[in-house]
């Protein structure tokens, strides 16, 4: 045992020497690390949906190739990223779906983030059905046509009612309230994260079965699967958007509104005067443009960097406008 102990001292010594050698190597290497260009490093946060990936990689290509920035991409979840922006760990989020509570808390009260206006894309949440179903039942154009026909959406877990496929728990929604307020005989079935919801409804669409679900645009899958909107009651003044707000169900008896998606910068980055700030402020494109790139990435599995490059090269005029050329 004693021998073993002495032995292990030798071993520790050896390991220590090795570690020290590594340390020296690292130190010398770090000293010769390249210096950033005038733009420095810009940290963009990519959210977990294809549209966000499209924004991030198109801007990344421009930042790197036209402005000489070094771009770092983080993938922090939607709400925690506000703390990251506030602490200057992330510089910009290029697509935020109206997190009004956060705007109040971080932009208005703390002034730790800045809302920089729309990225040109308009977000809209709706009740979607596949177009073959719309052709079969033209009355589904509005919600009134659903009345009495709910049972065609029956599923194993909805009993005698029709199944309404709810959205990702992280998205703004009020479908339980809407169903109740409209007096529809649907059972709200939560299906979890967007990937799970997509798996569920695409499976039904491929079999040409009836399905009605919470969905949104811009979304590259809409074109691929021909998803159309069921009209909900008109928006009235004071109509609520998000069930989180609570209150009587009657207050939710309207469609979801269409709103611009915001760019959000960390306060420090916004004030930094970096050429990246001016460019990202001007960055704006349309739903169709974003969908195109999203389809390349998520639908055709093109590498995001390659997709960004391809789009920028094909749309140099628009990119020049963003650059103020």
């Amino acid at each position, binding site marked *: *045992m004693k*021998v*073993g102990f002495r*032995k292990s001292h030798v071993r520790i010594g*050896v390991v220590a020497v*090795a570690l020290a*050698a*590594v*340390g020296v*190597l*690292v130190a010398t290497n*770090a000293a010769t690390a390249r210096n950033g260009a005038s733009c420095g490093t810009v940290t963009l946060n990519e959210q*977990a*949906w*294809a549209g966000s*990936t499209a924004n991030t990689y198109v801007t990344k290509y421009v930042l790197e190739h036209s402005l000489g920035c070094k771009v770092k991409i*983080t*993938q*922090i*979840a*939607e*709400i*925690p990223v506000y*703390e*990251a922006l*506030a*602490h200057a*760990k*992330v510089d910009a989020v290029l697509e935020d779906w109206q997190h009004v*509570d*956060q705007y109040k*808390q*971080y932009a208005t*009260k*703390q002034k*730790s983030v800045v809302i920089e206006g729309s990225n040109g894309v308009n977000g809209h949440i709706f009740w979607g059905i596949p177009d073959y179903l719309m052709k079969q039942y033209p009355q589904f154009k509005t919600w009134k046509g659903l009345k009495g026909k709910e049972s065609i959406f029956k*599923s*194993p*877990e909805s009993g005698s009612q029709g199944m309404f496929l709810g959205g990702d*728990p*992280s998205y703004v929604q009020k479908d339980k309230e809407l169903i109740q307020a409209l007096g529809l005989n649907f059972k709200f*079935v*939560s*299906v*979890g*994260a967007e*990937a*799970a*919801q*997509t*798996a*569920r409804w*695409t*499976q*039904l669409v*491929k*079999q040409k079965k009836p399905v009605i679900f919470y969905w949104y645009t811009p979304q590259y899958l809409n074109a691929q699967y021909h998803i159309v909107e069921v009209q909900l009651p008109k928006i009235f003044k004071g109509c609520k958007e998000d069930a*989180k707000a609570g209150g009587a169900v009657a207050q939710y008896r309207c469609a979801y509104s269409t709103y611009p998606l915001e760019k959000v910068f960390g306060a420090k980055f916004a004030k930094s005067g970096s050429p990246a700030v001016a460019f990202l402020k001007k960055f704006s494109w349309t739903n169709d443009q974003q969908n195109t790139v999203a389809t390349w990435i*998520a639908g055709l*599995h093109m590498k995001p960097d390659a997709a960004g490059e391809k789009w920028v090269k094909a749309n140099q005029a628009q990119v020049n406008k963003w650059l103020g050329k």
Partner: protein
Amino acid sequence: MSTVDEVVGAVPAPVVLEHRPWWRSRAVLSALVVVGMLAGYYAAKGKYGWPAVLEWSSLKTHLDSFQIWLSDQSNETSPNLFFRIVNGISGGLDTLVRWLYDALTKLTWVGTTVVATLFAWRFGGLRAAAFMAGGLASFAAFGLWDESMQTLSLVLAAVALSLAVGLPLGIAAGRSERFDRALTPVLDAMQIIPAFAYLMPVVILFSVGPGAAVITTMIYSVPPAVRIASLGIRGVPSNTVEAAKALGSTGSQLLWKVQLPLARRMLLLAVNQTILFALSMVVIAGLIGGSGLGDPVTNGLNTNPAVAILAGAAIVIMAIMLDRVTEAIAERTDPTRRHLDEAGRRRARMTTIGVLVASAVAIGVGFAANAGDIYTRYTIADWLIARIQSVLDFIADPTTFSFQHITNPLGNFLTQHILLPLDTFLVATPWFVTVAGFVAIAFILSGLRPALVTAAMLGLIGLVGEWQSAMDTASQVLVATAISVALGVLLGVWAAESEKVSRILRPINDILQTLPQLVYVIPFVYLFPISYVPGMIASVLYAFPVVVRLVERGVRDVAPQAVEAAGAFGATRRQVLLKVKIPLARDAIMLGVNQGIIMVLAVVVIAGLASTPGLGYEVVQGLQRNEFGLGVVASIAILALGIALDRVTRGNQGNRRTREDVS
């Protein structure tokens, strides 16, 4: 990955077979209680939900305002001392991880691979070196070298710190019964409360980045270090300790010269388990800026699932690699097994020097050949992704035979005839009948104290306003546990009887326990496109390996005398198994049931992401919709549900805590 085996082996279980008339057996009495509950269900279906009077409805609001207050404090232009200290900690951790990452990348991939492989060879032998080299080579081949190194540095930092915190605590708990009792509930909470619930406070305090990721990982990876270390100290034979005391050892002599050396194997097992637990947090860590392999998993789910699966595979490979290497090093360096003579020691020294020289040469070559910081050449990533994609396409195709005639009908059957009826039963039965029923069963199976704890926990669930969601979750947990136990007992007994089966099952168990569930749960949504089922399958896949390990160990450990005696009386192998081994292994099997429940609960949140309603869904919502209060309350309910089900199924064979807490 061998905790459970070791642990069950450590404490010999007294076996007392009871003799009661069949109509007074526990099973019959429990069945009677269930019949009573059914009567209550039919008598007052859905009439008595948890009464609002007994709810603390403002709790969520209080919690929400707490979070807002915390964020405001932390983002002040000049935060107070507390936040400055906390910021310092996270800054320090960020630097530590970055330093490790820099070291791994600056060595160049050639250097890192050669150094790590030689290190594994020197201290773990040829097999360990093969695992190390194979693992590192596959990260490169997968085109995930950089992500893997980020994850590796994060895991190394988290493990080092978890051990620095966990081992001393575990040793203290091993030496003091009272401290152990005080610590246990805290460790339970750390392991059962889903990370999603505390991610936001962690981010507010420690910001995002590797530092916050290390903290989050540690919350999950400290408990196994504490538990196994404590168990190791306890496992030192008491007569040895007594003898040392009789010879006049002081407390510290006893610790350093007797308890620690004798607990060596368990302490090394603690290291090994801590690594695996840390790796299971990689995906969560990615959500708050941990980078690494978690990012392609999360992001791939929506944009390119094949990439998510590839990254998941890399996580599994890293787990198996680190597991086998640490295990081999523990074996090889065991002083009780090594008896080196002078020549042997000289040889070992020469090898060490050789290893160092070779490492230096490798690093030099790496630099000279300008191998670059990051491996990007000659990957087979595209080929692999295409292969995975073709499998996914098959899975997502609703016209295949297997979908139309096997998985889809099976999923529908499970939902319509098992899950939904049970769910309706638990949700619609009057709350007081449900509480009374659970408490009565706990009393019958486990005794008075567990029954009281069960009552308190169910009361807590109602109090925080989560009764209905908890009943939704309970129904899924019960079905998933039943399936896991059935499968686990079957395979466990088989593995105990056949060495070959055991060898096949081990890597499968390893994979199932470390592959992030998010990776495989979505393909299951395609196969069983119905809520409840995919989440339940994920739970079963995570829980049954533990049951297998426990049962296998239990059946193997049946006293050989009993088996021989039965053989001498001319019992066939079948008779020995059914009449001797299984009854005598009853303890381990019950423990399997119990552990199955805990493991199933650990997957509740993932099940919520994959289409299962209930508490898991609410926890996710809590994080992602900024409803902190809701997430915390739902997590409390998960914890309470876990404790309640644990007590109901514990059985009353004395004090089993020490054994069951480990995995």
